[in-house]
C-alpha cells in the first residue's frame, strides 16, 4: 500500500559516481546557489546559452515580474525566478550597512537618488520584497530521469553529474515525466531531451561552468559538493545571526527523497514560492512495490483466462 510517510529505501551512498561504476572518480562537483545575494541580472542564463549553444526560447513578455524566461526548459538551462512579495523587506534597519541619507526629503512620488526604503520617511519604504533565484538542474543523487531512460542516453559522469548524450537520445520523453523538479524537457523542433550538463566539457578541463563563471555576485558557486555544503551551512548560520531567520537550505540533505541534490540552494522562503517542489521524491523509490502490484495483476489476468475456459461448457 502507498505509505508516503515511510522512507522507501535507504539513501544510496553520497558518491553516485562510484555507485555508477566509476573507478577513482574525482570528488563530486556541484553548485551552491545562494539566492540571498542574487541580483537577478541573468548573466547565468546568457552565459549558459552562449557556451552551450542553446537555441533561443522565443521573445515574449510574460508579465511575471522581470521573468520572461518562465521556467527551466529544453532551451533554458538556467532560469532566474523573480518573486515579488507584498510584505516588508525582512532586514531590520540595524542590518543595513548603507549610510543614512544626508538630507531628509519629502517623498514627492518621483524617483529618488537613494534606494527605496532609505529615504528616511516611512512613506518611502517599499511594501514588498523581491526574491531572485537562479534555478538549474539539481543533478540528483538518485536521478529519476537517469533511472527511467530506456536508451542509456542519460548517464552519470565521473563528477557525479547527470548528462544526456544527444547522439543516443531518441526522444521517448520518459525522463520528462520522471523528473520530480520538472527540469528536463524535450525540444519541440528537435525531438530530443535537453538539460543542464553542469558544463561537462568545461569541468572536465578543470574550468568553472559558464553560469558560475559569469555570476557577478558569487550567488552561483561551483566546487566539490562537500566543500559547498560546509560553506552553505556557514552562510545560513551567518544570515540567521544577522536577523534573517527565514534563510534555509534546499536540496542539501543526503537523506531527502532524491538522496540530496548536486545543485542545492539557499532560499529565503518556502520552496514552492520559487516553483520548487517542497518534498521531491525520485519516482523509482517505489518501483519494487510497483512491480509487485503489477505481478499480482498479471497473475489475476492469467487466472481470469483459465477460469473463463474452465468455468463453463460453452
Amino acid at each position, binding site marked *: 500500500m502507498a505509505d508516503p510517510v515511510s522512507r522507501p529505501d535507504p539513501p544510496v551512498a553520497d558518491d553516485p559516481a562510484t555507485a555508477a561504476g566509476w573507478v577513482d572518480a574525482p570528488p563530486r562537483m556541484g553548485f551552491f546557489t545562494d539566492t540571498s545575494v542574487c541580483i537577478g541580472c541573468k548573466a547565468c542564463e546568457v552565459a549558459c546559452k552562449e557556451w552551450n549553444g542553446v537555441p533561443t526560447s522565443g521573445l515574449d513578455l510574460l508579465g511575471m515580474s522581470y521573468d520572461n524566461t518562465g521556467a527551466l526548459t529544453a532551451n533554458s538551462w538556467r532560469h532566474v525566478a523573480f518573486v515579488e512579495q507584498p510584505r516588508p523587506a525582512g532586514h531590520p534597519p540595524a542590518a543595513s550597512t548603507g549610510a543614512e541619507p544626508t538630507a531628509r526629503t519629502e517623498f514627492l512620488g518621483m524617483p529618488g537618488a537613494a534606494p527605496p526604503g532609505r529615504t528616511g520617511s516611512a512613506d518611502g519604504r517599499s511594501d514588498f520584497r523581491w526574491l531572485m533565484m537562479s534555478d538549474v538542474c539539481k543533478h540528483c543523487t538518485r536521478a529519476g530521469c537517469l533511472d527511467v*531512460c530506456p536508451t542509456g542516453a542519460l548517464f552519470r559522469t565521473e563528477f557525479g553529474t547527470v548528462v544526456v548524450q544527444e547522439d543516443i537520445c531518441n526522444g521517448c520523453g520518459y525522463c520528462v515525466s520522471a523528473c520530480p523538479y520538472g527540469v528536463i524537457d524535450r525540444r519541440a523542433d528537435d525531438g530530443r531531451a535537453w538539460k543542464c550538463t553542469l558544463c561537462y566539457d568545461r569541468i572536465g578541463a578543470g574550468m568553472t561552468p559558464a553560469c558560475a563563471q559569469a555570476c557577478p555576485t558569487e550567488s552561483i558557486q561551483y566546487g566539490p559538493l562537500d566543500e559547498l555544503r560546509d560553506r552553505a551551512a556557514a552562510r545560513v548560520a551567518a544570515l540567521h545571526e544577522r536577523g534573517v531567520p527565514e534563510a534555509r537550505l534546499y536540496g542539501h540533505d543526503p537523506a531527502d527523497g532524491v538522496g540530496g541534490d548536486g545543485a542545492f540552494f539557499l532560499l529565503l522562503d518556502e520552496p514552492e514560492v520559487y516553483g520548487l*517542489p517542497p518534498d521531491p521524491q525520485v519516482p523509482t523509490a517505489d518501483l519494487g512495490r510497483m512491480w509487485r502490484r503489477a505481478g499480482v495483476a498479471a497473475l489475476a489476468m492469467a487466472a481470469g483466462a483459465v477460469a473463463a475456459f474452465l468455468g463453463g461448457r460453452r
Partner: protein
Amino acid sequence: MSPRPPAEDEPHRPSTDDRPPAGHGPRAPGEDESRRPVGERFRRFRDGVSSGANESGVTPAAGRRRRRAGEELAVPPAEFTSYYGRPILKPPVWTWEIAAYLFTGGLAAGSSLLAVGGQLTGRPALRRAGRVTALAAVTASGVLLVKDLGRPERFHHMLRVAKPTSPMSVGTWILTAYGPAAGLAAIAEVAPLLPDRGPWRPVRRVLPPVGWAAGVAAAAVAPALGTYTAVLLSDTAVPSWHDAYPDLPLVFAGSALASGAGAALIAVPPRQAGPARRLAVAGAALELFGAHRVETRHGLLAEPYRTGRPGRLLRAGRALTAAGVVGALLGARSRVVSALSGAALLAASVATRFGVFHAGVASARDPRYTVLPQRERLQRRQAGEQDG
C-alpha cells in the same frame, strides 16, 4: 471560451494592469508585434496550457484544452503558494499515441490469452480470431510507440540496453519477446490456405505446430504485456499516476481482458464464444474494482480521475463496460447482440485508457497536486519525528 482565472490563492500575482508597458524590456518597438500580441505566451502559461512545454511553438489544441480546463475548477481551492500559478512539473510530452497504445497493448494481451485457450480447448474460431487480433494490435502498438518518439528513426536505440529501473526498457523487451511470437502464431493461421502439393507442402505441414508453440509463448508473455504499462505510468513524478500505483495494474489487467473478450465477441460465432463472455465478466469486474479504488483511495490525487475530461472518459468507460457485460450475457445466442456488446467493451477500454492518461496529464499541469500532497507528507514526517 473562458480562460481560466488566475489562482486567487496566490498572494503575489501581479495583475495584468501592473505590468510594465511593452518596450520596457530589451525589445525593439514594433518588432514581432504583428505576429504575436505582447503577453500571449504569459497568458498561455497562466492558463496552464504550456502543453508539452512547447514554449515557442503554437499549440493547435490550446484553445480546446483551455475551455475544458475551466471545468476542473469545480473543486474548492486549497491553500498553497506557487510561482505565479505555474506548474512545477513538466506535463508528459506523450500525446494520444501513448494512450492509444495502452489500449492496443492490452487488446493484444487479452487476445493472446483467448487464442491460447481456444487452441488448447479445440475452439478454432476463437483461436484464429485471437491470434489475428493480437497481431493487428501489436503491430499497431509498434507503430504508435515509434510515432510518439521525438526521433522515430532512432527507435532501435531502445535495444541498446536492458534496464530494470526503466519500465520502458522492460516493456521494450516484453514487446520484443511478444511481438514475434504473436506474429508467428497469426501467420500459422494461413496454413490451410496453402496448396497441399509442390514447394508449399512442407510449409503447410510445419506451420501448425510452429503456430501452436508460438501461441503458447505469446500467451505466456501476455500478462506482463497487459500490466507493465501501469508501472510505465506510475514510475513517473506525475502525481496522480504515481500515487495510483497500487491500483492501476488492476485497471489495466481488467481492461486488457475485457477488450480481448470484446474483439472475440465480434469475430467469433456465439457457439465458440462462451469463454470470451466469461472473460468479459472477469475483466470488467477487475477493471471496475481497480477503477473504484483509483477514484476513491487517493484523496486529492484522485480528483483528476473524477473531474473534467478524464472524469467523463472514465464514467463513459464504466457505462460502456456495464452495457457490454450485460449484452454479452443476455445476448449469448444472438450474433448481433454479441458483436454490439463486444464493440461496447472495446470502446470502454479505449475510454478508460484515455481517461487514466489525461488524468495524469491534468495532475501534472496544476501545481496544487504537486505542492499539497508533498506538504502533507512533510508535515506527517515532521510529526512522526517529534513523536519518535
